[in-house]
């Protein structure tokens, strides 16, 4: 065959550039080939250290255009936030990149957060974009240790959107706000031409009062701490995915969307000073939160796959779709990092609330290897759990 000789041939400039950028010369004695006679495992170790250095390098956005991956909650989102937003807005309150910023106004400590909602479909079993928009912001405040107080609501509506649907959405927002004990005190509305949005997008912001004097944050996790989840994971993401009807899979599932402020209050009342951090496991799921803990605190997080509660329906759907439930979004589940001595009391306090009935310890924080999340698989093997690259389930919140 002479095809390979005669065919026109080009180079992929972007790939050559990427290689050149990393080829800084210090690899002259590149381990796998140059270090003949070196033990296999130590050669592998050298490579892994080199990768670790590459990973710690400052995040960059190389793409010229925004792609869906930038909104997926995984590595691309993280690069976008750190390289574009944090870079431009950098200040001590934003820098920890927690679910809410904690600020002081006079003698009062406040938690302040915002979130946008673009879920498709707008209505799904167990909820709709309205209660999601209230609960999501309430939960970001609650897991920051605050008592949620006031919310704002901004609407971007598409020309032609049924008023009846808007009524339904707003009614669920009012109901969710009442259930969470918050009031929606300010708002904004914009209407864009048909085709310039998808029905209805909502942005909410919220403030809450921080009264416990606690300093919570994923960076405070210490080796030995227990990792607790408050119930079965992945219900919301899978419910919304199936509600789109693209997959022809039916399951008896409803979204877990719920305000967790009372659940969190119970936990803080019981073991407040022993709680290092809480997060609500939304986009990117439990796995993403654990990676944030490992990175921020410079610790390892080790999880026992068998201990992670997952409903059979969610597991089944995840198997069919080739997704790991640890990455699937929840909207009413929290992950708490707690001092080991208080783990039992923390689980008991969570279980005392209906939303936390399935609370359980799923793993522990360890010292080494820093920055990695490890999983003991149900099969009895081990592997790491990394940040997700692309989102298998876009627009679930």
């Amino acid at each position, binding site marked *: *065959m002479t*095809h*390979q000789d005669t*065919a*026109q*041939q*080009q*180079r*992929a400039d*972007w*790939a050559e550039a*990427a*290689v050149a950028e*990393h*080829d800084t010369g210090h690899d002259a004695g*590149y381990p*796998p080939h140059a270090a003949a006679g070196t033990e296999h*495992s130590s050669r*592998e*170790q050298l*490579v*892994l250290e*080199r*990768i670790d250095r*590459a*990973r710690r390098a400052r995040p960059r956005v190389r*793409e010229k*255009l925004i*792609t*869906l*991956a930038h909104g997926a909650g995984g*590595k*691309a989102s993280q690069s976008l936030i750190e390289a574009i937003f944090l870079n431009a807005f950098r200040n001590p309150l934003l820098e920890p990149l927690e679910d809410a910023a904690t600020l002081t106004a006079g003698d009062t400590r406040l938690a302040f957060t915002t979130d946008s909602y673009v879920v498709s479909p707008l209505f799904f079993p167990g909820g709709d974009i309205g209660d999601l928009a209230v609960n999501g912001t309430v939960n970001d405040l609650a897991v920051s240790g605050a008592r949620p107080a006031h919310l704002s609501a901004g609407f971007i509506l598409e020309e032609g959107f049924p008023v009846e649907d808007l009524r339904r959405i707003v009614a669920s927002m009012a109901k969710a706000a009442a259930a969470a004990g918050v009031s929606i005190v300010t708002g904004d509305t914009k209407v864009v031409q048909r085709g310039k949005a998808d029905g209805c997008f909502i942005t909410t912001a919220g403030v809450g009062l921080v009264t416990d004097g606690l300093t919570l944050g994923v960076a405070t996790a210490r080796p030995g701490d227990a990792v607790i989840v408050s119930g079965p994971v992945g219900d919301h993401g899978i419910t919304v995915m199936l509600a789109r009807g*693209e*997959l022809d899979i039916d399951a008896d599932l409803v979204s877990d969307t719920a305000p967790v402020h009372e659940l969190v209050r119970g936990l803080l009342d019981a073991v407040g000073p022993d709680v290092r951090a809480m997060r609500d496991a939304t986009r990117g799921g439990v796995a993403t939160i654990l990676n944030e803990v490992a990175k921020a605190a410079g610790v*390892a997080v*080790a*999880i026992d796959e068998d*201990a992670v509660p997952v409903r059979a329906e969610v597991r089944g759907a995840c*198997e069919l779709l*080739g997704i790991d439930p640890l990455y699937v979004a929840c909207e009413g589940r929290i992950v708490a990092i707690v001092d080991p001595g208080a783990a039992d009391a923390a689980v008991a306090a969570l279980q005392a609330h209906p939303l936390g009935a399935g609370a359980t310890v799923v*793993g522990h*924080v*360890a010292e*080494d*290897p820093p920055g*990695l999340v*490890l999983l*003991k*698989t*149900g*099969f*009895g*093997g*081990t*592997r*790491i759990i*990394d940040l997700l*690259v*692309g989102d298998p389930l876009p627009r679930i919140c």
Partner: protein
Amino acid sequence: MRFVDEYRDAERARALAAKIASLCEPGRRYKFMEVCGGHTHTIYKHGLEDYLPESISLVHGPGCPVCVIPMGRVDDAIALAEQPDVIMTSFGDMMRVPGGRGSFFDSSAAGTDIRMVYSPLDALKIARQNPDKHVIFMAIGMETTAPSTAMTVLRAAAEGIENFSIFCNHVMIVPAIKAILDSPDLRLDGFIGPGHVSTVIGCRPYEFIPAEYGKPIVTAGFEPLDILQSVYMLLEQLAQGRCEVENQYGRVVPWDGNTVALRAVSEVMELRPYFEWRGLGFISHSALQVRERYAAFDAERHFTLPGVRVADPKACQCGEVLKGVLKPWECKVFGTACTPEMPIGTCMVSSEGACAAYYNFGRFSRQRVREVSIEASRA
């Protein structure tokens, strides 16, 4: 979960691991290639190597459909997507596969209409719903997915749908296995044969492997116990001095394959004289194209393709990884210039790619991971 948990039972795995260890000859090293990317994924996802003695190494083979798509083919597909009034569709795995000018994701961000589908029939549905557009399905995959593509073309023909075509990139695993066996730089002791491909082609096409090359092959399922058992069966063959094709995946794989599926494929498609595999180069009679009689459904005949070959960067060692000559971490750009976020090589793209599986699940000294995770998840 029924039909899954049985095949992931840790106690059975321990028992099987003990039997595997007892079959290993002291001082001998074994190298088995799992041909299929699905197996690679299972091995890493479940941490299966923890059950194998150090003397057994699993070498990852070329059976990951998106991993073997050369950059020039991706550029061709993007050129198709850029034609006026075209909707391009493909499996989700394809979205991030890099071409010389970027990926489907990049092309979509730049304004083309590229949609992810779960089945070629979904693409046909999109064609029915958009009669004023031409819908192209980028068909990828080995013998496993070729029948569903063929059935979709037959359906489109039966319904007289005129705005639908496929961009056929189906490849065949047997010529690739042969290319690997003919490659001088690899010494293998046996193959873990592809499970899903075999549901279509059966086990007979592998008979040349023991007959002509003297290597045993065991067709295996995709659960971790399936793979452990197939390792055991390979060792047993070697210990007993046998060398044959065995079928571990009998619950799904009939010895003679699925004749209905094979008939559909051969009705719609025929062998290409040659096809370029990423990293492996041109392999004769290793891929399928649409037959003349279904030309109406062939995107390559409908449109003019650039057909430009894009050379892999010199540093990219996908070929060696696909042939099992290098472990993923031995590639020069692994984890630095080439990562799942910005893959240069296709092995880093698909969850079935050896590099992505290793990077996402196994990127650490096994010994340390094991110590820490077992200690820390205790209690």
